[in-house]
């Protein structure tokens, strides 16, 4: 008897040990271990150690994007992002003291020329003289510039992935660099925040205009999405394109750009993320040393506008010299709302992988489309659930639209199977584990969600998703995927006609 008992208890302990071990394996990688430190000026520092390779992945993000813009200066967040590579008072110039008056002169001449050209009767001679003077000034300026010096210094010290990005919600500065160069980064980045200079502004505005032509004006899908957003939101600034409207890019002034910087690029509106091979105490010391003396500023203005409830379906057409595309958007709540998780599951159910419903019905079954995707947007403010597709000729956007609504009705009337829900949960869990492989990817994610609300969204996401039930999916389908809440955009073929209209 005693002997038997002992064996049992031994087995139990063993069982418990295995269980604990498994639990550890599970619990550990499914949560990010991020350390926080906030400077007195409000600058937040998020740190995650990963010591396998001597690199650090650095992000400095600002909570400002096109959602903070207004008509007239649309695209300014993005333009400013470009300007941040043009240098400071001590980078990118041979002698700022000598350069400054020339920069002022350039601005004055540009303004004067614009004024003269706006007169009813133009004084051609005067304009020509001003333009000549502008050219002379620019030649002198060119001699003083150290071309793209920040970019060049970073490269030389081994940085990769050097870039920046702007979205409707935020602006993100990206730099992955060998671990021993952390201080170099802190020095350059803090100087960009303290001493930025808007040099080569006018040529960069032209570069952005080319970017607009590339991404929107000659791209069927880019053109469709720009129009879709502008109609989906009638009041909220999510309607504004991040790249900016054409007229605004061409006319935004340096003064407007500088004012924008003053308002939004404050330490209390920024977050730094460091992931990789570093010691947090050391990183805190460096960040305090270089960023600590930047004064806190008044909080930037809040976006006050709330998108009013949609009162009925909106439909638009976009003519383009291209085969057809289509997109349908539905308003959904913002980050922090419980329904987001059920909507996330619903999106995966529809278009994640070859066993997803849209793939099986539209691409593999009826074979009416070559692309059919759905996904939710998560932003600082309530975003949309969007479906977008490319029909396969001779099938039409109308057929695809109809087939999509059939799938939506199915979601409302029949609960998704246990198998489907479990599959999605398995996939989200595995994709979390996979994401831990890349320091760069982690830095991006942590910084992204911190800009939207809080990086902890990542840590609670899996748990929240695991609570989503089949009934939740049906409920959110009924609640949000309705005719009156949707905007339908079709890209229709127009032969020969995206050319710049003659002025």
């Amino acid at each position, binding site marked *: 008897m005693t002997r038997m008992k002992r064996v049992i208890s031994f087995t139990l302990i063993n069982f418990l040990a295995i269980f604990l071990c498994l639990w550890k394996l599970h619990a550990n990688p499914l949560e990010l271990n991020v350390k926080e430190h906030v400077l007195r000026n409000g600058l937040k520092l998020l740190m995650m150690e990963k010591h396998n390779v001597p690199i650090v992945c650095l992000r400095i993000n600002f909570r400002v994007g096109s959602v903070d813009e207004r008509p007239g200066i649309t695209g300014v967040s993005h333009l400013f992002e470009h300007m941040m590579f043009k240098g400071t008072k001590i980078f990118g110039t041979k002698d700022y003291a000598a350069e400054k008056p020339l920069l002022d002169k350039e601005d004055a001449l540009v303004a004067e020329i614009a004024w003269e050209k706006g007169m009813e009767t133009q004084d051609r001679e005067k304009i020509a003289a001003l333009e000549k003077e502008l050219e002379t000034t620019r030649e002198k300026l060119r001699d003083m510039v150290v071309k793209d010096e920040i970019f060049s210094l970073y490269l030389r010290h081994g940085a990769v992935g050097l870039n920046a990005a702007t979205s409707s919600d935020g602006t993100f500065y990206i730099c992955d660099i060998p671990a021993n160069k952390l201080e170099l980064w802190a020095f350059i980045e803090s100087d960009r925040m303290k001493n930025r200079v808007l040099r080569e502004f006018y040529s960069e505005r032209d570069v*952005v205009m080319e970017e607009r032509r590339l991404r929107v004006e000659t791209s069927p899908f880019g053109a469709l999405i720009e129009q879709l957003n502008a109609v989906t939101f009638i009041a909220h600034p999510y309607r504004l394109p991040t790249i900016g409207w054409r007229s605004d890019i061409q006319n935004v002034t340096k003064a407007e750009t500088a004012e924008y910087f003053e308002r939004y690029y404050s330490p209390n509106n920024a977050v730094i993320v460091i992931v990789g091979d570093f010691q947090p105490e050391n990183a805190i010391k460096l960040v305090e040393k270089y960023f600590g003396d930047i004064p806190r500023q008044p909080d930037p203005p809040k976006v006050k506008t709330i998108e009013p409830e949609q009162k009925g379906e909106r439909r638009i057409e976009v003519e383009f010299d291209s085969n057809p595309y289509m997109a349908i958007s539905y308003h959904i709540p913002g980050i922090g709302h419980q329904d987001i998780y059920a909507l996330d599951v619903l999106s995966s159910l529809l278009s994640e992988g070859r066993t997803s419903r849209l793939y099986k019905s539209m691409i593999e079954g009826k*074979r009416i489309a070559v692309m059919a995707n759905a996904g939710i947007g998560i932003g600082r403010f309530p975003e949309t659930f969007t479906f977008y597709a490319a029909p396969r000729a001779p099938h039409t956007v109308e057929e695809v639209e109809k087939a999509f609504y059939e799938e939506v009705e199915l979601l409302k009337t029949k609960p998704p199977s246990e198998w489907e829900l479990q599959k999605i949960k398995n996939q989200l869990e595995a994709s979390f584990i996979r994401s831990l492989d890349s320091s760069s990817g982690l830095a991006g994610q942590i910084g992204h969600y911190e800009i939207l609300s809080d990086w902890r969204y990542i840590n609670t996401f899996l748990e929240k998703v695991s609570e989503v039930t089949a009934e939740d999916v049906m409920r959110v389908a009924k609640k949000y995927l309705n005719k009156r809440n949707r905007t339908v955009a079709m890209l229709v073929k127009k032969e020969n006609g995206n050319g710049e209209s003659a002025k």
Partner: protein
Amino acid sequence: MSIKRYYHLIVCVVCLTGVFSVNNSLTLHAEPQKEVIPSSGEPKSEGAGMLSKFKFAPLDFNPPKAERIALENGMILYLLEDHDLPIVNIAAQIRTGSVYEPEEKAGLASLTGEVMRSGGTVSMPPDKMNEELEFMAASVETSIGRESGSASLSVLKKDLDKGLNIFADVLRNPAFPEDKIRMKKDEAIESIRRENDRPQQIAGREFRKVIYEGSHPYSRRVDGTLESIEKITRNDMAAFHKKFFRPNNIILGISGDFDRKMMIEKLNEIFKGWKKEDNNIPDVPKVKNELSKSVHYVYKDINQANVIMGHLGIHRKSPDYFPVRIMNFILGGSGFTARITSRIRSDEGLAYSAFSDFQTSQDLGMFYVMCQTKLKSTHRAITIALEEIEKMRAVPVDNEELTHAKETILNQFVFRFTTSASIVAQMIDIEYEGLPLDYLETYVDNIQAVTIEDIQRVAQKYLHPDKIKILVVGNKDKFDKPLDTFGKVNEIALEQYQEIPVNNAKSGVR
């Protein structure tokens, strides 16, 4: 989590991707990490002066090395254990490619690569395979490109056996069912029909045709044509698969959470009975190394011209590979600071993306410059690019530029070793390309050895602005100056695809 965001609104400051890049980014790395302390050159600004006084601790890093094993059946393995995460990744490269398909059946290789996976295997129908894999959050994928095939498995450690079995089954026993063949054919046809919607795709496709003579497989689309796709049969695909998918044609890289000894046993088991066969890989005709100047124009009514210009370049095993790489870095391959980018983008604001590239392949690849610019600066942008190419030949680069290039490449080294999967992938690539297996060990020395004279020598040998081919997609009525100032213009008419009648939807051809 948020698919829309990608389309929604991200705009970046840098855009530097080659349109032809296969796995040619020329950036394989040596070990151990030797660090270069940026030293040379007078700081040009106050900030750079301050930075030059910074002291950086040495970077101490010995990247892990993948183990190479040759199995009895001829398969080459690269193994790298990494127990950080409970994941196993397998990547295979297979000696095959669309260069081996007959011209009248262009698209055969690509279609075979697609349907191998999407069509399931003899013992496992596609639906079942998709369900099994997706439920365990694993993936098996295959594809065949111009000069190689690839297959991959990513699986959680706990599902390794299941994953391996499916992976091996797909490699060995694809079923090629007719319905899935039809589906992939139709998808390829739709993708061809949609190609003319995007100016960059037109430019890339037509440029390839201009660079390579029509009879060479490098001139063709990997997807085939509307006509050739219809000529491909199930038998063709099964035969193509049988010919190339043999163990002695496969290099397999395995990284992640596994035990080396057990993995080798498992691989021997799943590939049991799969025999080595004599090498009967056909020869690919040599690219005729002849250059001649020409100008080509494709009309599309858009407000931005797509410019691509260049000529034949080098192959991957060229002895001049390293000096060419550094020369191109300085000319247009390194982002903002490269000469072409700096002038076209930064100085004059003519383009968002402007760069040059030496795309390499097993035979001669392409040197090309690419940019997109508003119609009324088309001529200007081309002129700048030509001037910079000419200058690279005529004037030696200065020491500062060379040092900058070398230090950048060497200091970026460590990033080639950030994941076990990337270390293994590099070794597979080195082995597949037939490069020396100590490539990574000698890489630093090879970069360091390049001199100013080397750069000028390769510039004169491999850059030929007088024999360059220029291709522009856009609307020439609005160009700043006529294109024919560069030479006689050959106008290429875009193929007009007829509307497909609805009742013919199944066969899908015009």
